[in-house]
């Protein structure tokens, strides 16, 4: 059942590169990562590609396949038409290191800017009690495998390098939402900080991030929109605004 696949693979470094043609056998059931590996083992020994688990669990093999941000290990070759050329390029939102490998350090810097989980100071080991239904909201966001496809596709930064400084991106909006909804997290004002420090307001909810998420996390509906609503609620509700001034309480958001 093997068939021949035509590929165009982007090869190059930080400043220049081009699409190289490759032609390779693909067997039944194979994914794009398999054919990339075959090219690597037989034709381009130094073709750079990141991967780890090959089971959609680690989020390493993120790349753009026919222009769409995808995990190569979860993209079936069978989904492409007979004779169709598969074009494989690196993530566009991040600087290329070599071939399909990009510098994703932006994401690690942003992770460092999100204030950590803050449990009650007197919480003793084994004493936490939480309802399943209460942990499930945050658990959805903790499914994130940090493939950064949502970051790559987000048009706020995809072609706007200048926005990177003030915009954390969808991955970190769900991180903030996760902590905000965490039954044991005591830190206040996470939503307000999302708006003021992490650029939540720059998101105009086109849901591109949700569409590319391989874990099917409802990034926009369950994390971004609820946070935006609460921020708007407090910022533009005169009663609450006044209340927060008078009572010196901004903990309500």
């Amino acid at each position, binding site marked *: 059942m093997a068939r021949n696949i035509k590929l165009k693979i982007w090869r190059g470094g930080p400043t220049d590169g081009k699409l190289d043609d490759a032609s390779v056998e693909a067997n039944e059931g194979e994914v794009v990562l398999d054919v990339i590996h075959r090219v690597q083992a037989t034709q381009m*020994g*130094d073709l750079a590609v990141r991967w780890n688990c090959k089971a959609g669990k*680690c989020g*390493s093999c993120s790349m753009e396949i026919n222009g769409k941000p995808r995990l190569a290990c979860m993209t079936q070759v069978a989904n492409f038409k007979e004779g169709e050329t598969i074009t494989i390029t690196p993530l566009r939102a991040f600087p290329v*290191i070599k071939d399909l490998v990009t510098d994703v350090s932006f994401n*690690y810097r942003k992770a460092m800017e999100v204030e950590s989980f803050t449990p009650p100071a007197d919480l003793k080991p084994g004493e*936490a009690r939480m309802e399943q239904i209460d*942990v499930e909201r945050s658990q959805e966001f903790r499914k994130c*495998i940090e493939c950064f496809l949502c970051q790559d596709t987000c048009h706020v930064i995809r072609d706007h390098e200048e926005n990177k400084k003030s915009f954390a991106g969808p991955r970190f909006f769900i991180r903030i939402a996760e902590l905000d909804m965490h039954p044991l997290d005591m830190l206040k004002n996470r939503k307000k900080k999302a708006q003021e420090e992490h650029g939540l307001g720059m998101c105009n909810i086109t849901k591109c991030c949700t569409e590319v998420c391989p874990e099917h996390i409802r990034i926009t509906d369950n994390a971004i929109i609820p946070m935006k609503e609460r921020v708007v609620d407090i910022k533009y509700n005169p009663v609450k605004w006044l209340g927060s001034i008078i009572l010196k309480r901004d903990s309500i958001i």
Partner: protein
Amino acid sequence: MSEKIQMQRHNYDIVVIGAGGAGLRAAVEAREAGLRVAIICKSLFGKAHTVMAEGGIAASMGNVNEKDGWKVHFRDTMRGGKFINHYRMAELHAKEAPDRVWELEIWGALFDRTKEGKISQRNFGGHEYPRLAHVGDRTGLELIRTMQQKIVAMQQQDKKDHGDAESYLKVFAEVTITEVIKEGGKVAGVYGYRREDGVEVLFEAPVVILATGGVGKTFKITSNSWEGTGDGHALALKAGGNLVDMEFLQFHPTGMVWPPSVKGILVTESVRGEGGVLTNNKGERFMFKYIPKVFKDKYADNEEEADRWYVDQDNNRRPPELLPRDEVARAINSEVKAGRGSPHGGVYLDVSKRLTAEVIKRRLPSMWHQFYELAGVDITKEAMEVGPTCHYIMGGVEVDADTAAAVGVPGLFAAGEVAGGMHGSNRLGGNSLSDLLVFGRRAGAGAVDYVKQTQVVKVSDTSIRNAAERIAAPFKRTGGENPYTLHQELQEIAHNLVGIIRTKSELSDAINKIAEIRNRIENVSVQGDRVFNPGFHLSFDLDNMLLVAESIAKSALVREESRGGHTRDDFPVMNTKWRGLNNISSFNGKEVVVKHQELPFMPKELFDLFDIHELEKYMSIEEITKGGR
């Protein structure tokens, strides 16, 4: 291509190699004690193989069945390992696992809950009570992310206190370590290169903690990622350390078998824990035929009782699908060999008849996703096809149980899969994640004590030059062997001759063939330059895998019995004589040498936790008399 090779030099108190559960837990412990720590990993931060663990983390918290406790966990671990575990490691592990799980919760982990709001615990093979804390079937992801975020939290604190987030704790991602450097008989640092640009790096440090994980990529069909190339095992051997019982290799009974490209990918044991049954192509639930004598009184011998166990665990014996992994893997292997396998050479695993689609998707979400996306199988409606896959190595670096210090190499420590002894001849599911945290923490603490009492030695220029020459070598050759081809050949040899069932002639054959590849590896050359070059990276991984394969094959040849993850067709039964003996591998610069060493015997208070009649199945009369003194 002429290029000027640069070298970066770093100084730390402790260098941790590996950023999985064990490495990160060790780093946290060392940083909390005030030391400066470097964490080095081959991949990006957060991608370590720990992420692949699915079912859960074993700890006798007793949240679901209050009869559970460390003594029961200890007994189960020893039984699962067929009593060749290092008793002290199994004891520490059972005692400390609950604290390590609770601590994760304080660092932000969100486990699934019981009705009372405690951490939920699920059934797993070989565990007497529901014991595995879990998050659906992505527990490893929760563990790695929690540890990763704990590291970030400590860095944020360092930024507040010292102005620089990375001043005391820094992650060096995508760095390969090729050598542990010793000076004057003790550890002085490590040498390697950055994968991103090939720049060489020297870390001077009096302590190196190996937390490099497993060896799966030595084999053709494996659940392991590319990182599992036995780096720590090889680094330890070359630094003068020992490996213990490398013949004990776990084939997980249920890996995917179809389509070919996903062959080996893990199907979590939770599928069976949640009620999945194994059948052959005749529709027989065949596991009832494979209950070994030593487990007769603990496992149901008929379907009715096995099914009742899911609702009433106090009055029924467990279903045999939940036997320890070695037993289930061998049973599946036998069924397939006897012609009763599925179309793609596995057997059927079906959970759709026991649970509703909604419950399956909630409790086994990533399994549903994995089969649906990669095999086009809807596990809420149909059976999966599964077969054994190389999953875990019980053997590993010989360490001191309490401190995780590698025997024979001052300054070297090892924790997690790379360390040996804890699991004996077979690891129980769920005992790996707890092992990572218990011994990761202990390695960190052991390292801190060592740093305090040792004098730092400088790495000599000669050592640096030698290490650098080795890295440069593949580029100086042209037209030599292709590293990818050699790797495939090694995987074939390991899989066919050192696999799940072994014989003397095949093992001898394997040892010769591995030696041949070792000769050819001297001639490996790579295409391209140093910048993120996978062929170049593989040439070093290959060297490590060859040492590992040699150690496994030689240890397997010596052990003339079958026990846990070592099955000899020519010696099919367990032999009491061998229970008391470890196989110790060392490296003499040319080849791996294996010798026997007596296993330490349990003290009376641990011995007395077992029923004498159970011990009689494993131990000689002399040992029992000695133990009961």
